[in-house]
């Protein structure tokens, strides 16, 4: 089975993300980057499928500047077989442009499964995987939390509000992976050394025109300071009154 996993380089989310002087992007200097969490679970899903079948290939694809090669190598150090770097100056804000470039690369690849993370934690679009499926004319199952592949067909579970949905689909297919499917493995030290010797093909791509432009990026408004209206049970009537008349939540 031939599996492609599309991954994105994103800033690590437990650090302060300052807005750059341009006002339309974050200032990346000194920030730590990693593979998007959901994409790591997609990589892990690909590796587990390959290991279970005892054969196959897991190919990592990522679009962006030269910096994304570090994230591709991380996936290779986890055990993926080879990487493809679609080289572009930056990741455009229009998901369709990214999806088009990925689809052009994936189409002749003969993949049985194309995996994405459900959403990238930096821009929260969650659109690229579904768009690639559309462009390739393949079935698309989003937010997969359980997965089984057997005899050229797949069964997946999706977490819905108050229900779990079980779906079946034929291969080839595009899946976007949700939290809960697995926990990604740590790259072993031997894996890190081996990754340096695995093929990583660099392919410059010409991106289509982005129809979406970021005009402004601003921090969320500061939360107003809280108000203490009293202490103990004596304050309850006043609290209830304010929740009804002022906050209007009761």
């Amino acid at each position, binding site marked *: 089975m031939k599996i492609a996993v599309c991954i994105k380089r994103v800033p690590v989310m437990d650090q302060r993300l300052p807005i750059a002087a341009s006002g339309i992007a974050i200032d990346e200097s000194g920030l730590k980057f990693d593979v998007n969490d959901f994409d790591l679970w997609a990589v892990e899903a690909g590796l587990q499928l390959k290991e279970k079948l005892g054969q196959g290939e897991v190919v990592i694809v990522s679009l962006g500047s030269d910096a994304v090669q570090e994230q591709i190598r991380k996936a290779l150090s986890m055990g993926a077989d080879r990487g493809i770097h679609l080289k572009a100056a930056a990741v455009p804000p229009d998901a369709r442009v990214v999806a088009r470039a990925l689809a052009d690369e994936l189409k002749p690849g003969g993949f049985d499964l194309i995996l994405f993370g459900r959403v990238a934690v930096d821009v929260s679009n969650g659109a690229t995987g579904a768009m690639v499926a559309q462009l390739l004319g393949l079935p698309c199952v989003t937010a997969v939390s359980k997965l089984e592949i057997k005899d050229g067909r797949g069964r997946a579970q999706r977490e819905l509000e108050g229900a779990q949905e079980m779906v079946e689909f034929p291969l080839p297919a595009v899946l976007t992976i949700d939290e809960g499917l697995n926990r990604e493995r740590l790259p072993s*030290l031997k894996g*890190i*050394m081996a990754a340096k010797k695995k093929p990583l093909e660099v392919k410059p791509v010409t991106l289509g025109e982005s129809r979406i432009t970021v005009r402004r990026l601003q921090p969320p408004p500061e939360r107003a300071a809280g108000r203490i209206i009293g202490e103990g049970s004596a304050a309850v009537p006043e609290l209830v009154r304010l929740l009804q008349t002022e906050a209007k939540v009761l």
Partner: protein
Amino acid sequence: MTSADFFNVDSSLSEEERAVRDSVRRFVDERVLPIIGTCYVEGRFPKELIPVLGELGVFGANLPEAYGCAGLNNVAYGLIMQELERGDSGIRSFASVQGALVMYPIFAFGSEEQKKRYLPKMATGEVIGCFGLTEPDFGSNPAGMITTAKARPDGSYVLNGAKMWITNGSTAHVAIVWAKTGADEASIRGFIVPTDSTGFSAKDQKGKLSLRASDTSELVFQDVVVGASQLLPQSGGLKSPLMCLTQARYGISWGALGAAQACYEEALAYSKTRVMFDRPIGGFQLQQARLADMLTEIVKAQLLVLHLGRLKDAGTFTPQQVSLAKRNNVSMATDIAREARRLLGANGILAEYASMRHMANLESVYTYEGTHDIHTLVLGQAVTGLSAFN
């Protein structure tokens, strides 16, 4: 930039070195930190982590891939030791002994057959080793050891004697034992001794107030017969075990840095959340002085070991440089651990916090692998040409 990397030392590391550090860091966060306080109180080494550490590849990680090891450079190896000791000195000690004091001598002084037989299984943690040099009455002066290995006509040896303060002693499958085959220190040779040999016994050393999450044992050899194939053929003289110690001390100088970073991070976080006199204690000048001093010493120690690692990779480092780094970094870490514990106030004496555990552990690290005092004399001799102890 994080406060933990104030001088952006990360920018001097390669992508691969950072990847190694990040993997081991996450292992320590997820598998060591949640259990280590309890292990320490119970006086238990978490043996269940040995196969996980083996799978991760930390044992003998700077030895060649041909023997099942990761083949990393020495800076990456140092970063592994740093991260393990950020967890606990006992975990780092286990890995130091396995890699630098057992796998290294087999690699450096062993036959090809011995290397192929032992190293791959030691890299995975299937075979655990310990290192027997120190004796009850010979610590800083190992040349005086009384353990003997008498050659027999068939080429085998008979070992008699005792070794003390042996990390992994009761856990190990094999012991690297250093013994005199003749009268003087030039006759010291190394042997790979299976711990199930007749006449070999290991006894857990009870009552430790330091390195409680580590196995420390006494070894006794009573007419232990070892075959000629168990002698490390290239070993000869006291220089051989001292070469092993140079490897281990190199790792310790990185490890102590990890312990210091753990204490500093704990103290820093605490100072920002602990409120006294209506404000975080980090706002008081006395605590800021503590934190500024800790940070400064950590940055100096980081730059010291990173440069030492680059020298080791270039093949130009000296044992005296390792003495300086071990002496400085362990002493720095013991001071920081104590200051961090003080900043934590009464909470600082609880096992729930790491600083006092590190503080107690580091007293052992200060004393083992060449005491602080002996390294002082090594440096004195290096600069004056005059030995104070020979």
